[in-house]
């Protein structure tokens, strides 16, 4: 049995539909016991122009079927990324997209300019949806004009694929999705974490030092499937489904809902081999259905 899992996802031909989600796979060098064969692509941990210390601890707390995180985009800054990680990426047999962040549209553009053309950088995922930074982040993602402005600023600086990671914290994701499409995005990642809070009844304070955090994990999956589906049917560019995927069936829900590919995130924390399990399970499902390729999978995608 051989099933062709290759997909076209926003300007990239991927050998498989399973992508490592930003912030859950470091820079691709940290996850132990990694089965690289299963990776369609990797989206790096979010990076800014300059190094960032991140938020004070506690940064994470487990919640029912999920977790809240407020890491705060800790990172070494773009120069260290170019020096320490890009040369390794250049040797890998799958593409690495850099998750890029800024406090202004100009900063996103400047970061893109610094990374464009660096060997190892295959594309960009614009983070306009991080709930855990004081400046920028989610602010850009819940205003269609700001989201378009950031997308356009990145688009002007590169011909590489540009994806935009959307926040679920909006009243109509279709409006933001279309704004990003019109501003030149090649694909959309839907969705980033939901903003949540957990209170310690002993201290009567939030459990996270940042007070709020981004909720991820199986708890958000039905919400994510719905929002990814809404985004997918409102644009022509591919949508990458993200949110609580742990099993092959979870991923297949997003694919049937109209997504071109999926990202696996939090599941990797518990199981370093989660991506490979999802990848192999998708192939098994398609084979059991008598399908020779992922492209033959029927989609539920009524257009507006």
């Amino acid at each position, binding site marked *: 049995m051989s099933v062709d899992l290759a997909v076209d996802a926003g300007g990239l031909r991927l050998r498989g539909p399973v992508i490592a989600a930003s*912030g*859950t*796979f*470091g820079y691709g060098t*940290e*996850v*132990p*016991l990694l089965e690289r064969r299963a990776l369609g692509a990797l989206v790096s*941990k979010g990076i800014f122009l300059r190094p960032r*210390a*991140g*938020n*004070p*601890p*506690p*940064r*994470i*707390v*487990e919640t029912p*079927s*999920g*977790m809240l*995180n407020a*890491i705060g985009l*800790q990172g070494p800054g773009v120069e260290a990324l170019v020096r320490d990680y890009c040369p390794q990426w250049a040797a890998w047999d799958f593409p690495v997209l850099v998750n890029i962040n800024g406090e202004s549209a100009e900063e996103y553009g400047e970061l893109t300019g610094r990374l464009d053309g660096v060997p190892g950088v295959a594309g960009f995922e614009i983070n306009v949806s991080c709930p855990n930074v004081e400046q920028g982040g989610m602010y850009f993602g819940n205003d269609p004009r700001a989201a378009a402005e950031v997308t356009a600023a990145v688009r002007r600086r590169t011909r590489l694929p540009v994806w935009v990671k959307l926040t679920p914290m909006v009243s109509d994701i279709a409006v933001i999705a279309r704004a990003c499409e019109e501003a030149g995005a090649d694909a959309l990642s839907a969705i980033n974490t939901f903003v949540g809070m957990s209170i310690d009844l002993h201290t009567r304070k939030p459990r996270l*030092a940042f007070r709020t955090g981004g909720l991820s*994990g*199986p708890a958000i999956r039905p919400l994510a499937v719905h929002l990814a589906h809404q985004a997918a049917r409102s644009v022509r560019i591919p949508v990458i489904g993200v949110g609580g995927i742990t099993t092959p069936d979870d991923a297949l829900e997003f694919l049937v809902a109209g997504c071109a590919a999926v990202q696996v995130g*939090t599941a*990797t*924390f*518990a*199981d*370093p*081999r989660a991506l490979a399990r999802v990848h192999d399970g998708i192939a098994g499902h398609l084979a059991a259905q008598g399908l020779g390729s992922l492209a033959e999978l029927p989609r539920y995608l009524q257009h507006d």
Partner: protein
Amino acid sequence: MFELTAEVASFRQRGPHYWVMGFRAPEVAASVRAGQFVNLLLRPGPLLRRPFSVYTASAGEVEIIFRAVGEGTSLLAQMKIGDRLSVLGPLGRAFEVDPEWKSVALVSGGLGVAPMLLAARDARAAGLRVVWVHGARTAAELSLESGGDQVVYATDDGSRGVQGSAVAAVPEGVGAVLACGPNRMLAAVAARWPDAQVAVETYMGCGTGVCLGCAVPLRAGGYDRACQEGPVYRAAAVDWDALPSHLQYAVSA
């Protein structure tokens, strides 16, 4: 580092509060060093793994010690011989011992005793005289390990040994201090012995360096990861004011 499915091989209650669970994990048992931990996944069980210092390691078996305080540890306490769990480890940076010290104090608060059996093994192998200092709130929560070495007890309520903290009970003249326990105890260790090695407690996400959830604030600025650069630190390197003083579900508590 290994990821393996391990069978529960032994189970005992130690005192009124603590459980010791052993499981078959030959690769981990053969390579684990004092202060390192394993990250355990229970299915069915909570979303994330739970980190535990390795308590003993011999003949292909690894033991952990814990108290049933939350969802994960309560499930662990209900496991039976032959049940299976996923073990990831050994993880983290270990205690280092130096024969030049001549003697070493192993200072623990409550379940902070977890890494000290292996530390004592390594210290004796290096020819050091070992002094155990066990602290706890009450005699019932006190650890009693001594392995035949000198041992000092300290309880908050004075129900056994010296009344007061384990840190205050450490005899003068020891060559070095290794400590594990609540972070507020470790902060007191840092104030008295900047060069002490301490195993900190933090919440942990992945245990493998990816999620950046187990941030430890450093005196030099910024954060690093308890699961990679720690959990063992030089005491003076940690910014104790910025590290939460006590966590209910953390690695050693």
